[in-house]
């Protein structure tokens, strides 16, 4: 315990130096801004900022780059809530309940709640990183492709009833997403498939381009012709408008905690990311909710769970990175590259060899998240005022940001055509009321399912029972089965729910 306290002290002495504080603030501010701006996400921003950090002390450089990464998760929900345009690809799910809240004139409340969710989600995961990183990373190593497949299957099954409206249309869109995910390179043979001879498609469509097209560009096209924003009657923002009422607090705290747990779990598994975390958290919340019909219409639970989850996942992604040297997701992989550039090779010895860097970085997470909390709450008023900018000025600017964002990922003009094409597809989908979220779901999970299924088959020499033989995989398959059961036996479910209600009437008195 005294060693633990000594480590914390070591970390604080690093993270509280004037230089570290300055670059932490710089990082989280840049993160918030790129998070708010549609199209430009953490990956693009960190890639752009990386060369600038070559001249910094490695710990300072990492503090700043990490700040951009988690800062972007705070900002990402802002545009989703206010404009129905996801600020980052991973905050698309926040549009579902955030935007309806804004339409009800509750934008300040929604923004305040997401700031709190983000802070709680991050804090939860940072505690895990501090106390249990090597333990959790060791557990994550037990996950082979067999387990990954079962987890992804659960994700797909759980999320299959994500959106409101026709379940058949939603299913069709999941399949559409999976089909889109097939474009690219076949992992096992290395052959290009469905790329129509276009080399730029050999890595498939970019997640950012697909998400920004379907959600961002499509939203703008659908609103062309509307004179101005501010349909929500926003005038002066008072602090009172932001604060949730007692009953609203009650509505959000459980989903926030559940989101934090799901996000931390998903984040600690290498190769996943905040997108999957928020999808799964939303799906789980909707399944657990007593009144799922509110989801998609401005449910605070539907807003809170994914927001807590994506922040938790981002912080938890540092668990495998710092304790094993294996990046939790694509953005952390760039951060690891930054460490190598600075002469620190991440590996299993990092925590022991570089205690100053490890604990300095961890303590900077606390400082950075506190900065973000106090940065974001006063900014709510400013963001909400964005709505009074006329669309004729706002929309061209957003289109420009989206184009810059997708271009800067690989410096390739082709990606701009992709985003515009998906804008047209998304617009057509809206006109015929096909939901876009299931497309994203299929697009993210489909290729992962395929990759892990095929690798599991390769390693088991084609033995399908491998999914049942491995206990962790079996557990996830059984949970998937339960989810399916709850879909197909709604009668049974409502009976169960009413029985629970009878037995515990005091639980939801208001």
């Amino acid at each position: 315990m005294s060693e633990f306290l000594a480590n914390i002290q070591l970390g604080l002495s690093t993270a509280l130096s004037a230089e570290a504080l300055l670059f932490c603030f710089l990082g989280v501010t840049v993160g918030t801004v790129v998070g708010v701006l549609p199209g430009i996400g953490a990956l693009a921003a960190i890639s752009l900022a990386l060369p600038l950090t070559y001249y910094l002390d490695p710990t300072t450089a990492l503090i700043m780059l990490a700040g951009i990464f988690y800062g972007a998760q705070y900002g990402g929900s802002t545009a989703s809530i206010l404009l129905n345009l996801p600020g980052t690809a991973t905050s698309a799910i926040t549009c579902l309940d955030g935007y309806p809240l804004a339409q009800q004139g509750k934008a300040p409340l929604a923004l305040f709640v997401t700031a709190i969710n983000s802070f709680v989600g991050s804090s939860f995961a940072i505690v895990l990183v501090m106390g249990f990183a090597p333990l959790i990373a060791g557990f994550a190593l037990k996950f082979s492709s067999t387990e990954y497949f079962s987890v992804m299957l659960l994700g797909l099954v759980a999320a299959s009833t994500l959106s409101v409206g026709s379940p058949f249309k939603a299913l069709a869109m999941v399949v559409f997403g999976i089909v889109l995910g097939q474009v690219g390179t076949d992992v096992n043979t290395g052959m290009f498939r469905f790329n129509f001879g276009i080399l730029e498609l050999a890595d498939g469509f970019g997640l950012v381009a697909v998400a920004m097209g379907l959600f961002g560009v499509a939203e703008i096209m659908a609103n062309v012709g509307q004179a101005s924003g501010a349909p929500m009657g926003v005038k002066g923002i008072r602090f009172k408008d932001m604060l949730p009422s007692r009953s609203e607090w009650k509505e959000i705290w459980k989903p926030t905690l559940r989101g934090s747990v799901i996000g931390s779990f998903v984040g600690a598994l290498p190769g996943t990311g905040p997108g999957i975390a928020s999808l799964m958290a939303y799906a789980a919340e909707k399944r657990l909710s007593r009144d799922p019909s509110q989801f998609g219409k401005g449910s605070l639970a539907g807003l809170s769970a994914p927001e807590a989850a994506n922040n938790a996942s981002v912080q938890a992604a540092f668990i495998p990175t710092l304790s094993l040297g294996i990046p939790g997701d694509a953005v952390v992989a760039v951060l690891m590259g930054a460490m190598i550039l600075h002469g620190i090779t991440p590996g299993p010895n990092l925590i022991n060899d570089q205690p100053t860097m490890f604990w300095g970085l961890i303590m900077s997470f606390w400082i950075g998240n506190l900065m973000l909390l106090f940065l974001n709450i006063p900014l709510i008023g400013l963001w909400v005022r964005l709505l009074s900018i006329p669309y004729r000025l706002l929309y061209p600017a957003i289109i420009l940001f989206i184009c810059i964002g997708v271009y800067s990922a690989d410096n390739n003009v082709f990606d701009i055509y992709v985003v515009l094409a998906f804008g047209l597809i998304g617009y057509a989908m809206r006109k015929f009321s096909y939901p876009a979220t299931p497309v994203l779901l299929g697009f993210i999970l489909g290729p992962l399912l395929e990759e892990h299924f095929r690798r599991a088959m390769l390693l088991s020499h084609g033995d399908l029972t491998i999914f049942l033989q491995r206990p962790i995989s079996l557990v996830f398959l059984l949970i998937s089965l339960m989810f399916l059961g709850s879909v197909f036996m709604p009668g049974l479910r409502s009976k169960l729910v009413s029985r629970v209600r009878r037995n515990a009437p005091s639980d939801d008195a208001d």
Partner: protein
Amino acid sequence: MKKIFSKGLVSAGLALAIGAASMFASPANAVAADSYPDKPITIVVPFPPGGSTDLLARKIGEALSSSLGQPVVVENRGGAGGTVGANYVAKSDPDGYTLLMGVTGSNAISAALRDDLPYSPVTDFDPVSIVISSPLVLVVREDSDFKSVQDVIAYAKANPEYFTHGTPGVGTSMHMTGELFGLESGTKLLHVPYKGSAAALQDLLGGQINAMFGDILVTSEYVKSGDLRPLAVTGTKEHFLLKGVPTIAEAGIDGFAAFSWQGVFAPAGTPTAVLDKLYTAVSAALETDALKEVFAQRGFLVEGMNPADSKAFIASEVDKWTKVVEAAGLKK
């Protein structure tokens, strides 16, 4: 082999056309070579920032910019295992202002593996210099029963397609090294491709696969921590980051050698004077302390080949890997 020739013919035709065009422009070119460089130079890195190619390009860029007196900009154009960026440079003006930091995958293996590659590493580039090479290391888990290369060969002979090795993907130098190992030892390993080396390393540490032909720097960290055991390096001599580890040749496969390498490439048709000027600057850069430090830290071996040697080297590499691809039946 035939495929390569037919593609070579088409490219040769193209090269002729370009050559003819450049003849008309030759006076201008001569002038250009004298005053080269009179504007910023771009080095395209065909991968996202943060990797070893990016690092090398930036360090070389810094050195070039101080010796040539013009800014050198590094531009990351990732995609399709480096081929998107390589294709971009192959189609750029051969004036020495757009260069490529090419690697084994983008500038040799891709030609061996893909019929649908829109450029030829042999005819569409004039190499400036193959800068560094880097052997790989065959690693297993510390608790593995495989104590030597001979153990691996004996097991793989008795159990074809049961010795699993993970790679960052089809067509990477790790993959090709594994195939070469199988061919030269008369065994059949089971290739398990991943998306990137971190995922493969994760499964090796987790005990899901038997081995990996891994990057020396990254795996040496796990060797130090006692998680992984090196069996042999794929180069021709002992590596300074893994003292005491034999080469695969020493461990029993005579003449085995496989490297990954990185080099600076210009589009085909770049004036010789410009290539020479660049080569002089690159060789001088390799002598600087900044680069020596990078090499020592990253485990790179300095090559610094001249343009003519580099060109011959690329041709021999394409040839070598084409034979491996065909013998292993990787092209279906």
